[in-house]
């Protein structure tokens, strides 16, 4: 007789389903679901037929390629466009180095951006744009190769990123006689700058306000609370108007902040209040025992906050924070109201040109698509970050 083993390997039941099985289980499992599915398909067919016919036969897309440069940089003077290129090259160096040093997410993002560069190369853009894209993509690849496994460069790259903000601003503006006034900044360039400055500046401010609101010191607590509640009680448009109209009145003498800077300040101050409330939500989720354990090993309040409380609080509210960043990105379109030519503002000025009147649908759809691409990328990256940090696991 053969030997029988009592512990047999048991395979987990096969729970994977093919697409047909999935359709059957989810869309056609009962007679009324089948009817609903068919009705929905008919509905979608009519909607999409309309949209697709319009997109492919009726729409006049000529307006987009003809104004691509305007959409990208607005009225920024062409002979100064090398400034924009240099900014992009600088960022490509930083991004490439970062991707080389930190693997994982940074590398994925960089690869995606590199692919975008390659796509632009293949599309029929103007030669100068393709040339600059080629240079930027090559710089990206080279810095990536250089940065590989250079662990000890980390802090320098971080310093580089921090400095990239003032550097970008100064580079775009220029020094001495040869300057480009911020009134000439526009298009996607302006939108991205406003959003980036707003995001980077509102984050630390929001964290400080959130900590302030929970402070033991009554003065700090009171100031933070009043600030947060006041700003949250006022619409962003009102704050933009106030920045635009009131700030120049308050600022005595000849010194005047320019319009773009005022918009940046308004956006930052506005977002910081919401950021503070998001962060406070995270702070409240941290059990008291965490602080006590940190104190018990002798960490001071600032160190306990920095190493124990904030990392846990922030990762708990990553979705809310990224949601806030996405709103901020879209809210930059409100600066069109105070006369700045951001992506949306520039779209309206293009439509004001008699050559392109009546093409609202094409222009706004294009602009919406650009906003969507950026916000979707932000949302996707946030999910990746959560997965990388193991949120919810430890």
């Amino acid at each position, binding site marked *: 007789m053969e030997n029988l083993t009592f512990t047999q390997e048991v395979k987990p039941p096969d729970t994977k389903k093919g697409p047909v099985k999935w359709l059957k289980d989810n869309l056609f499992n009962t007679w009324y679901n089948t009817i609903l599915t068919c009705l929905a398909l008919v509905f979608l067919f009519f909607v999409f037929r309309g949209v697709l016919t319009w997109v492919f036969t009726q729409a006049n897309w000529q307006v987009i390629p003809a104004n691509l440069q305007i959409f990208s940089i607005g009225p920024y003077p062409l002979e100064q466009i090398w400034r924009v290129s240099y900014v992009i090259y600088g960022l490509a160096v930083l991004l490439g180095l970062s991707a080389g040093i930190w693997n994982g997410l940074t590398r994925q993002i960089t690869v995606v951006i590199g692919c975008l560069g390659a796509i632009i190369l293949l599309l029929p853009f103007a030669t100068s744009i393709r040339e600059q894209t080629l240079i930027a993509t090559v710089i990206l690849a080279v810095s990536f190769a250089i940065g590989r496994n250079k662990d000890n460069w980390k802090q320098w790259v971080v310093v580089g990123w921090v400095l990239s903000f003032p550097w970008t601003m100064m580079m775009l503006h220029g020094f001495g006689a040869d300057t480009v006034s911020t009134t000439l900044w526009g298009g996607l360039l302006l939108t991205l700058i406003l959003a980036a400055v707003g995001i980077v500046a509102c984050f630390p401010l929001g964290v400080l306000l959130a900590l302030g609101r929970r402070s033991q010191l009554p003065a700090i607590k009171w100031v933070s609370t009043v600030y947060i509640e006041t700003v949250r009680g006022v619409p962003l448009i009102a704050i933009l108007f106030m920045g635009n109209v009131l700030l120049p009145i308050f600022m005595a003498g000849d010194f005047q902040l320019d319009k773009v800077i005022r918009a940046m300040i308004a956006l930052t101050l506005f977002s910081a209040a919401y950021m503070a409330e998001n962060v406070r939500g995270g702070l409240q989720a941290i*059990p008291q025992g965490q602080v006590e*354990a940190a*104190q018990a*090993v002798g960490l001071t309040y600032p*160190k306990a906050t920095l190493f*124990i409380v904030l990392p846990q609080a922030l990762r708990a509210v990553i979705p809310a924070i990224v949601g806030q960043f996405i709103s901020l990105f879209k809210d930059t379109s409100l600066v069109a109201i105070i006369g700045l030519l951001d992506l949306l503002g520039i779209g309206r000025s293009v439509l004001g040109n008699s050559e392109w009147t009546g093409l609202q649908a094409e222009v706004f759809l294009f602009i919406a698509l650009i906003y969507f691409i950026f916000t979707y990328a932000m949302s996707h990256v946030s999910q990746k970050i959560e997965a990388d940090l193991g949120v919810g696991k*430890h």
Partner: protein
Amino acid sequence: MTENENITNDPIIICEDVHKWFDDFHVLKGITTTFKKGERAVICGPSGSGKSTFIRTINRLEEHQRGTIIVDGIELSNDLRNINLIRQEVGMVFQQFNLFPHLTNIKNITLGPIQVRKMSKKAAEEAALALLERMDIADQAYKYPAEISGGQQQRVAIARALAMEPKIMLFDEPTSALDPEMISEVLDVMRELAHSGMTMLVVTHEMGFAREVADRIMFFDEGVVIEEAAPADFFDNPQHERTKLFISQTLQH
């Protein structure tokens, strides 16, 4: 009970008439006692009697409102520098472990030495690995707290406290949150620590451990120490009715 050959005559914690209120609620009603270097004291008593509150006043997780507490020659006052000095000398282990969930076990342990004691990262990691070895969980160093068992987590927490090289260790019911089969692994570690000469204040209901390790058992009731004695006297010859009741109840389990 084995004789404690490490106990000295030098006082290391001196409590004089310590009072504590939570709002109007009088939790500690005049605790006066002295702990000697190398002494192992077990604190027991019914729930709500102020045991946790008392040991938490010793590293200032709770502030006392009257009386004096002197730890290793430093008086606890509102002076933040003194508080931080004392916290470096006093390790604490909590009932709920309170490990930092976003840090690996080894980073939980090295954070204090690196940030507070200004140790180099390399030295701190070596010391941490040695401690984990001593706790018998060296293989768990690079996992996160959520990935190991409760008994292992509590041993990481003990290692975290020991990494600061404290002179005194406070334990607040270190085994109460553990499944029964994990209690002994934590008690073994604490027993080993006791024999190494550490000054220990342990709040626990583990009477076997108390009888074996303690030099003195303090019985708390409603914010006062109503009886304190060596384990032999405490268990075999309790003086107060409340103590007798408590002992008969805990020994039933």
